């Protein structure tokens, strides 16, 4: 039950320690010879020009929004799937209506070319 989450909390802490452990070892054992060129950004040997931000395209944002919406749809689908055994045909009809609505949205996005990566 819920007390199992104590184990998960412990696992989180120990996993962080486990991941940080080798880094501590590195800080102790590895050489630290600082030089100016080592800390430059890597660009196949060419010196960086311009700031390092990227003018990104609307495509990324559209994919993120689509993901949020379909994620929420999945959140509705999970309880339905678990409780489907105890419900009758009407549950299926309701879920079909819900999914068809979202599929219409997906079809609209598809037809408008929002899913294309240019």
């Amino acid at each position, binding site marked *: 039950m819920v007390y199992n*989450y104590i*184990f998960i909390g412990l696992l989180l802490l120990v996993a962080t320690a*486990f991941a940080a452990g080798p880094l501590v070892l*590195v800080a102790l054992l590895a050489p630290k010879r600082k030089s100016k060129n080592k800390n430059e*950004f890597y660009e196949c040997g060419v010196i960086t020009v311009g700031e390092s931000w990227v003018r990104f395209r609307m495509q990324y944002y559209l994919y*993120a929004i689509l993901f949020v919406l379909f994620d929420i749809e999945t959140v509705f689908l999970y309880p339905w799937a678990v409780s*489907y055994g*105890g419900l009758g045909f009407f549950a299926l009809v309701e879920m079909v209506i819900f999914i068809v609505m979202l599929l219409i949205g997906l079809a609209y996005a598809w037809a408008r070319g929002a*899913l294309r990566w240019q």
Partner: protein
Amino acid sequence: MAHFDLLTKNDFTPILAQRMFYEQVDTVLWIRWGLYLFAGFFAVFPLIVAYIVLAERKIAARFQDRIGPNRVGPFGLLQPFADFIKLIIKESIVPKGANSFVHILAPILTLISAFLVLAVIPFGIGLAPVDLPSGLLYMVSVSSIAALSIFLAGWSSRNKYSLLGAMRGVAQLVSYEIPQVMSILPVILWSGSLSLVSIVQTQQYDQGWFLFSPPGILGFLLLLISSIAEVNRAPFDLPEAESEIIAGFHTEYSGMRFGLFFLGEYLNVFAICCLSTTLFLGGGSLPLQGYFADEADHMLVAPFDASKQSVLKLNAHHEFPENPSTGFRINITNIVGETQAFQVSHRVGNDLVLMANRPVEFKADAYSRVSAAARPSYAAPWHLSNLIMIPVFLGKVFFLVFVIFWIRATLPRVRVDRLMSFAWKTMVPLAIANIFVATIWFEMVIRPVGGFSARLLAWLVTGLLTAGAVALVFRINRNSYQANDPERRPTLISRSGDSLLAATTRGL
């Protein structure tokens, strides 16, 4: 203020029980957890993963007609230790101006996500580290943290190409997360529970592997493909491709930080193979075990009307488990001969309390027969059963890992626009169609506790539907595969787009 008065009355909603929460964590449980943590998670799993890395190098080498590393120790078996020592003594270089805390945080998040996924998986009877009632939802939500960690890795390096690789990586992860979580839905539908232990028990004693049904096959393939994309493995490894965009989001990572990313990636591969095995291959059970399960019979002591009650009073309880895993399944047969499957929530003395998702139109008189499908695990001592189940489970997992290596050695990398359109235009519609086909399978085979003929008919019907759905989806996407792709357009077609016949017969 009437609303607030209601809250203070005792018979309204029982909120929490301090007794239920921490009094159940006794010494035995602490010892068990300690063993899992320090002998399992942080000793056995890193070793398994280290040898998976070595296995990949040797298997990929064999696919390329050469031998892998074989210098360090016999057959190269000490190679992981050599790699570890090498990574530790390398200098840790951080690009100037990079946010050092976030730079370290990113691989740690990936590792944490992989470890947390492995916490719920049943490796044998009684060998799931924790058995959460909503284990599958927990697993899905934990594996969604990986997207954030890739973005942080790319952003903290302050390198244009890292950032680009990171954004592409996040877009890919985010696109393939939806088919991954949707392809699991048939499993949840059929087993009626989110607990992984219950899913394995359903496959082991009740319904056979979920793979052995057309929607199961499609769901397994969808899960495998989208999980491979989720862990950035070939052929979906565009974010970390070595020949493009330098090395993607982990360009600026060197030494042990890169080692942590590497470890996290292979741990993730191991975790998704364990997940696929548990969900579709009945982790630990033999292929036909579910069809030949024994049943123990008991009698109802009082009449039972499922729409009004949720407690079954039985005449004996010694064959049912003391603390059943969430949702373990029983069948009730009433005098008319109808059989209905129910799920048990917990057991109190001689009474079984059923779960809230029970079918409500069912009445059984007193002296009706109750049979437990999940009995045999408690008849044989669990440690003897585990001697078979653990090797079988590991065998299945390693076979899937080998399949993933095989795919990497064989297929070329997918181009980024094909990647995205494959996720959104092919896999999401297929996953949604799969849910409906799975519902049909459920109605034909599982709800009426069907036998061989029902199963055969359901195979035919759902097989046709699945094949039809796949064909339909590929046909819808047909235009995007050929006509829009200038590299694939055959050179005999002229620029104005004549057909091949017209082009060859022009001038005749």
